[in-house]
């Protein structure tokens, strides 16, 4: 346990150093840079690229969470159950579209920049959250739901006080998957001029500079690992609190 915490701290420090003081690592990347080429990407600050990368992901994931959870709530109510197959089809479509195609289609409509990337990340984020929210909301312990009804909680009170809190660990699993996919997918956003860490990787590819590719890849990878890990910790904590016998950890479909 202690060892894991130590390792986690080391990774966080490494990531911060890579982003804030990239020149500290010149020695490490130099062997991968072409002769006379730059070793460290300096056209834009890695910190600002990281921040804009993360805010794109955060914005898209938040929107995807809101929409997916709302949809899942609607289709798990008795009145909305008829729409379950339809809404599944729509979110699945979001996934079968390759991200590059989404970008290409969105550019004419939204122009270059962050817009098309946001749309792609949003569409990509929907499905895992939607699926997990449906699983979470439809596998609640029946005795708890019966008791909630029997002691006089209204529909709304049941949803807010019982169903969503109990389904939350499972929904969180979906959010985690979705965030990690978005962190990776955001890199290709730089092909349509969104400012993300993909810029570093693409610059490296265009100039045959492996050092750039490694830097960009390493930073994106570390963000993904650390965010994934933090969300897993949160899920474990929540599921443990809900106890072994409840829906939480069991129904997750990672």
């Amino acid at each position, binding site marked *: 346990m202690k060892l894991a915490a130590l390792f986690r701290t080391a990774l966080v420090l490494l990531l911060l150093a890579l982003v804030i003081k990239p020149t500290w690592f010149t020695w490490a990347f130099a062997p991968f840079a072409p002769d006379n080429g730059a070793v460290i990407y300096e056209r834009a600050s890695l910190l600002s690229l990281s921040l804009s990368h993360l805010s794109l992901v955060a914005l898209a994931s938040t929107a995807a969470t809101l929409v997916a959870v709302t949809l899942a709530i609607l289709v798990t109510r008795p009145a909305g159950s008829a729409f379950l197959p339809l809404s599944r089809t729509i979110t699945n479509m979001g996934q079968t579209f390759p991200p590059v195609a989404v970008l290409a289609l969105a550019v004419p409509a939204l122009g270059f920049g962050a817009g098309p990337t946001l749309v792609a990340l949003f569409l990509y984020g929907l499905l895992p959250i939607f699926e997990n929210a449906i699983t979470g909301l439809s596998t609640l312990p029946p005795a708890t739901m019966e008791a909630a009804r029997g002691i*006089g909680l209204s529909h709304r009170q049941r949803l807010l006080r019982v169903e969503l809190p109990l389904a939350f660990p499972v929904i969180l699993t979906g959010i985690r998957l979705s965030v990690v996919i978005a962190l990776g997918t955001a890199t290709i956003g730089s092909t349509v001029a969104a400012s993300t860490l993909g810029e570093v990787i693409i610059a490296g590819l265009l100039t045959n500079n492996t050092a750039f590719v490694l830097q960009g890849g390493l930073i994106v990878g570390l963000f993904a690992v650390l965010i994934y890990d933090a969300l897993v910790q949160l899920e474990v904590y929540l599921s443990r609190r809900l106890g072994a016998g409840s829906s939480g950890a069991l129904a997750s479909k990672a």
Partner: protein
Amino acid sequence: MIEIDRISKLYDGAAAVDAVSMTVETATITAIVGTSGSGKTTLLRMINRLVEPSSGEVRINGESTRSVPKNTLRRRIGYAIQSHGLFPHYTVARNIGTVPTLLGWSKAAIRARVDELLELFSMEPEHFRDRYPAELSGGQQQRVGVARALASRPDLLLMDEPFGALDPIIRARAQEDLRRIQRTLGSTIMLVTHDMEEAIQLGDRVAVMDAGRLVQHGTPAEIIQRPASDFVADMVGGVERPLRLLSLFPLSELVEQGHAEGDALDADTSLRDALSNCLWTGRNAVPVVKDGVALGRVTMDAIRARAEGPR
């Protein structure tokens, strides 16, 4: 007083509950007993309108349950079920305080009520208040479930096989606790069970159901001594009938003047336990005391006479 007036529930034309009428007096326990599928749960759930009756009416203290909104009605009626249905993400205190919170009680009043109920169920408040349900034993979870149902001092407490999942020893204790708490609080309780023993032990009145119909409704002694049909007689259990009957009466009913050897029994001991004691110690009579004062004795002959059915 709860009046159930010709209440029925049809599923696909078949009656799950068929024109059941009965009256439940305030501060009594009515045990509804019957075989599986006889409509006990459906009858109970029609009272708090978890199931809407197809016809008929329920009145609580003269007021029809249809004249109040469902959720308001349910907050006035306690509801406890076999698998307790506690909220796993709430502490014990928050579980018990759920309905008082909905009713807008003050924090201090809720806290006091929670502690009062935990004490009543012999669960040290400091020790249990802040635990989560997953950190309790099955018996403790069940008690918290009943405490939650009683929290807002409901007019009526509905219980659907509340002790069904407990082992026999814990179950016997839970039954005693319920009886004691019901006497202390003066609660009106309707309890579903498929165990005739439990119905006889707990019920002031026993209602026997068969295929959706109420076939007999009376005191435990009436049900045992004068079963209304072969079905009820079967439910009461041929061989065990005399013993069940004896379990209903305390020794104080048969005390006579005279002397008997050996350890004295308390006047509240049931005749069944006294008979068992006579057999075990090889006595024909036992001395009876109440609060340390000798009252006399009870003879095995007197017990035997009480156990005899109609000739």
